[in-house]
């Protein structure tokens, strides 16, 4: 070998050592990066899980969009963790992939439950419809068919365009997929965003093509109707959605009806009715009541127009007071529209349930407006003039006949009914629709109206449209644009009780309207949502406009200034709207595969991939193993920069430090690392707290306490150091600049602290676990509860299982979290062996006070 080659080779070999070190350093860096990603995914997964839990528990509104997004997000995070652990320990935990797949499959199945098969016809004539065909025709049309064919009542001639037809329409050219995509991307919490989205989707639907076979079926059915009613017959197109009008849920007034439609506009009108499924009221209603989009299949009724002389609504019982069994009829001139949209005063007839019903009371009001439908102009709003204005819209005979119909329908269906009717030119009654009445149980205590000073009374009188009382700042809504700025918890004040305001009811504390009665759509939605509503208060808008906060006592029919707890207290709490809804049930079921934690004890035999039953189990397992793998890697590679070092503060401490990445300010040679060389901000914060206030020494232990300690020491296997790995024996920190993981065994208990604290506020978290102790169970419990109390005061979410405490706080800015770490440092020192004295209440109180005082002092100091 020539001399030059030898030298070269020698030089290369000498250079190889630093290269290896560099490679190892890089390897560490990469592992730490994966570890950090894994921790981030863990944090995200836990966040979504607690979001799911809170959503299930509370009254927060959510829809399928939330369910799908939450499930997808949690699966993505958990899968990232599985993948991350595979990077840290290749081939070691591959069983996790199978467990994850199995759980995800379950969740997918739950989310994708198929709908049961339905009648495949695209249109069904009214003569063939009945209750059993609700799935195909929607509730409204199935009911009309039922009462026509089984009770022999008069209904307008017509046919149903089925839910199957609507499904074809939405499936055509992937319309539904596009709608879902836009909905998923929207921020459903923001009303203005939702408003724009709703308009956009409705435009898409109105422009979409109707599948040819559906178009043909509709036109054929219309031709058959023309054969029955005459050429060019005008029809009304009304929504007959599946899921609407099912008793507990009245989708009152959310969908469009198109009146006076001829052959030429039939298909456009059909699309417009379908589009109203995505109208703002309908979208918000589904969100608020927990219906999935796909739970609402849109059937549409096509009914010949009735030339209505008078119209209105009849209730087979008092809709606001279920104890009042009398029949209530609202009547106006012309179409019932004026009653339904609350835009004019209407006559009221009250009848007994006798056979024949007896007219008990008639209140004839001045009817200013009416709606009529003319073949050419369509539906027109007219001023009522002349004597008609003050004449009753119904004769006594008609009122009695209507009450009979209402009672017959109640008997047939077995529940109180809400029936829309009209009288034709011959004076005959025609039923336009019927549905179960949403009555509300009044507050149980019929509390005597609390005495009030007169000056606080703002309005008195009106009609209880929905009983109860609510308080909040007044918000006067006059234009549609006001929908967007309505604040949560305000009192809605409007001139007319129009259906358009219904989308605000999920956020309103109460509703006040100058016009309108209990028969309108807004009133029935208010009753359903349990929102107190007081209608028919002339001048309310001006009187309340500048009133600030008011209390609306709808039951007592008054509005008073300020917030009156006495009035509010008498009210039953609102029922959680989502409970029992299809979406709630679905999320509950999916959550069973996500949220429960079964793997608790890392030392147990069951702490293994095959025992992971939920996604939470998987995250728990992976987290534990990832920390272990990170630590082990540092130990296995005897590489001076990265092996653990003993902390040296004046003297060597029993604390070992493992630098994961950038945890030291400089390269540290030898066995020891000094405090000044530590760059890890959370660790330094912990140290500040740990050393802030000197320990008073072990608390005085009574004889029983000491015995108990000795007893535990011989039986508690986790105290038997021989069987524990080095990992668990002593206090060690794994650190990087913004991360620290502390495992601490002080005295007889152990604690772990994990913190990621940087300028990425959303990713910041701090978790603290605390377990064990040497005293008997009761004393350990007492200590755990004391620590929990302190941490909860600091904003931690705390969970306790037996003597195991888990506390977590997340997404707070760096300085806030560093302060909390200081407190944990303080607690780590000062609660040591606390359980010895925990049986003594005076001492417990002494320590509680001392801790609080110390912590206050700690928090008051500026960050070092």
């Amino acid at each position, binding site marked *: 070998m020539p001399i030059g080659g030898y030298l070269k080779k020698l030089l*290369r070999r000498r*250079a*190889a050592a630093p*290269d*290896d070190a*560099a*490679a190892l350093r*890089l*390897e560490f*860096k*990469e592992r730490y*990066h994966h570890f950090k*990603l894994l921790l*981030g995914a863990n944090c995200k997964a836990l966040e979504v899980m607690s979001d799911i839990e809170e959503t299930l528990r509370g009254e927060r509104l959510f829809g399928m*969009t939330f369910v*799908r*997004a939450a*499930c*997808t*997000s949690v*699966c*993505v995070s958990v*899968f*990232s963790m599985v*993948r991350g652990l595979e990077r840290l320990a290749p081939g070691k935990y591959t069983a996790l992939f199978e467990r994850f797949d199995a759980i*995800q499959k379950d*969740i*997918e199945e739950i*989310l994708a439950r198929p709908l049961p098969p339905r009648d495949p016809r695209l249109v069904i004539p009214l003569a063939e419809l009945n209750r059993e065909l609700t799935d195909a025709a929607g509730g409204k049309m199935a009911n009309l068919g039922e009462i026509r064919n089984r009770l022999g009542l008069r209904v307008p001639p017509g046919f149903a365009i089925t839910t199957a037809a609507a499904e074809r329409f939405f499936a055509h050219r992937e319309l539904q*997929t596009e709608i*879902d*995509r*836009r909905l*998923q*991307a*929207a*921020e459903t919490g923001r009303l203005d965003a939702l408003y724009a989205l709703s308009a956009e989707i409705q435009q898409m639907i109105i422009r979409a093509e109707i599948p040819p076979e559906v178009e043909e079926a509709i036109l054929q059915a219309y031709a058959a109707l023309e054969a029955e009613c005459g050429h060019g017959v005008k029809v009304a197109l009304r929504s007959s959605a599946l899921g609407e009008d099912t008793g507990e849920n009245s989708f009152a007034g959310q969908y469009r009806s198109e009146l006076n439609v001829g052959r030429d506009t039939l298909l456009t009108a059909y699309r417009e009715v379908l589009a109203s499924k995505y109208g703002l009221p309908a979208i918000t209603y589904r969100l608020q009541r927990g219906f999935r989009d796909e739970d609402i299949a849109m059937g549409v009724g096509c009914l010949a127009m009735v030339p209505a002389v008078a119209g209105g609504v009849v209730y087979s019982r008092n809709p606001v007071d279920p104890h009042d069994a009398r029949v209530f009829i609202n009547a106006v001139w012309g179409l019932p529209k004026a009653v339904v949209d609350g835009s004019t005063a209407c006559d009221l007839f009250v009848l007994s349930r006798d056979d024949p019903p007896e007219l008990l009371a008639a209140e004839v009001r001045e009817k200013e407006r009416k709606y009529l439908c003319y073949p050419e102009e369509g539906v027109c709003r007219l001023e009522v003039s002349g004597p008609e204005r003050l004449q009753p819209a119904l004769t006594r005979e008609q009122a009695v006949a209507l009450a009979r119909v209402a009672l017959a329908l109640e008997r047939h269906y077995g529940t109180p009914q809400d029936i829309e009717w009209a009288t034709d030119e011959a004076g005959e009654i025609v039923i336009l629709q019927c549905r179960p009445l949403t009555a509300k149980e009044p507050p149980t205590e019929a509390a005597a109206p609390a005495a009030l000073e007169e000056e606080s009374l703002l309005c008195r009188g009106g009609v209880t449209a929905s009983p109860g009382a609510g308080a909040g700042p007044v918000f006067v809504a006059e234009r549609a644009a006001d929908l967007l700025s309505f604040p949560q918890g305000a009192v809605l004040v409007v001139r007319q009780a129009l259906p358009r305001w219904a989308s605000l009811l999920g956020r309103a504390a109460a509703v006040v309207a100058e016009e309108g009665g209990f028969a309108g759509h807004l009133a029935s939605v208010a009753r359903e949502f349990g929102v107190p509503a007081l209608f028919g208060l002339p001048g309310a808008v001006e009187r309340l406009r500048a009133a600030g906060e008011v209390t609306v006592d709808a039951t007592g029919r008054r509005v008073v200034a300020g917030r009156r707890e006495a009035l509010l207290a008498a009210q039953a709490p609102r029922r959680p709207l989502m409970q029992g809804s299809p979406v709630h049930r679905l999320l509950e079921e999916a959550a069973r595969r996500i949220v429960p934690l079964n793997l608790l004890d890392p030392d147990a035999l069951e702490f293994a991939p095959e025992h992971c039953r939920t996604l939470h189990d998987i995250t728990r397992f992976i987290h534990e193993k990832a920390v272990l793998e990170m630590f082990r890697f540092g130990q296995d590679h005897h590489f001076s920069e990265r092996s653990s070092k003993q902390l040296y503060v004046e003297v060597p401490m029993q604390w070992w430090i493992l630098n994961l990445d950038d945890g030291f300010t400089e390269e540290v040679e030898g066995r020891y690392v000094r405090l000044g060389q530590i760059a890890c901000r959370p660790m330094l914060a912990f140290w500040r707290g740990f050393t802030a206030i000197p320990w008073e020494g072990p608390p005085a232990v009574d004889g029983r306490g000491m015995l108990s300690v000795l007893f535990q020491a011989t039986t508690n296997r986790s105290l038997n150091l021989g069987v524990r790995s080095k990992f668990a024996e002593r206090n060690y920190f794994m650190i990087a600049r913004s991360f620290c993981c502390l495992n601490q065994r002080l005295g007889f208990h152990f604690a772990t602290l994990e913190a990621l604290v940087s300028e*990425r506020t*959303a*990713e910041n978290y701090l978790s603290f676990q605390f377990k064990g102790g040497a005293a008997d169970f009761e004393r350990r419990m007492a200590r755990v509860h004391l620590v929990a109390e302190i941490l909860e005061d600091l904003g931690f979410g705390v969970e306790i299982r037996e003597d195991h405490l888990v506390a977590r706080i997340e997404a707070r800015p760096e300085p806030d979290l560093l302060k909390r770490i200081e407190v944990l440092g303080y607690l780590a020192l000062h609660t040591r062996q606390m359980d010895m004295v925990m049986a003594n209440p005076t001492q417990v109180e002494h320590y509680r006070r001392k801790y609080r005082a110390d912590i206050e002092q700690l928090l008051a100091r500026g960050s070092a």
Partner: protein
Amino acid sequence: MGDVRVLFVDDEPDFLDTLLKRMQKRRIAAFGAQSGEEALAWLSSNPADVVVLDVRMGGMDGISALRAIKTAHPLVEVILLTGHANLELARDCLAAGAFDYLMKPVNLDELLYKIEDAFQKKALQEKKIRSLEEAIGTRT
């Protein structure tokens, strides 16, 4: 965030435009493509570190685009950003090597952090390959 180069792929021009503007405001070298095909063509002649990809697009769909990108440019990290919450698809994307699967609407900071993490992953991987090459180089 160093000199990260990001390609955003989305078939909604409005969304893409807004995103690019906001990214450029944050001094990110951000580029846009309106389809998977366009993205691949762009990548064949321009370097990129991270691709942010919509899942559902006209033409080549997101997952095919993801696979094609990972095949042609294995070091490029791909983040899916989508309005489509679908478990199976999300899992397939991750299994096909996606860095993450995010759902719209996404917080801009959160997206930036993801891009930063993906970029760091790529940088580490490149360093590792370089040092391996050097190690092999020195021993032969």
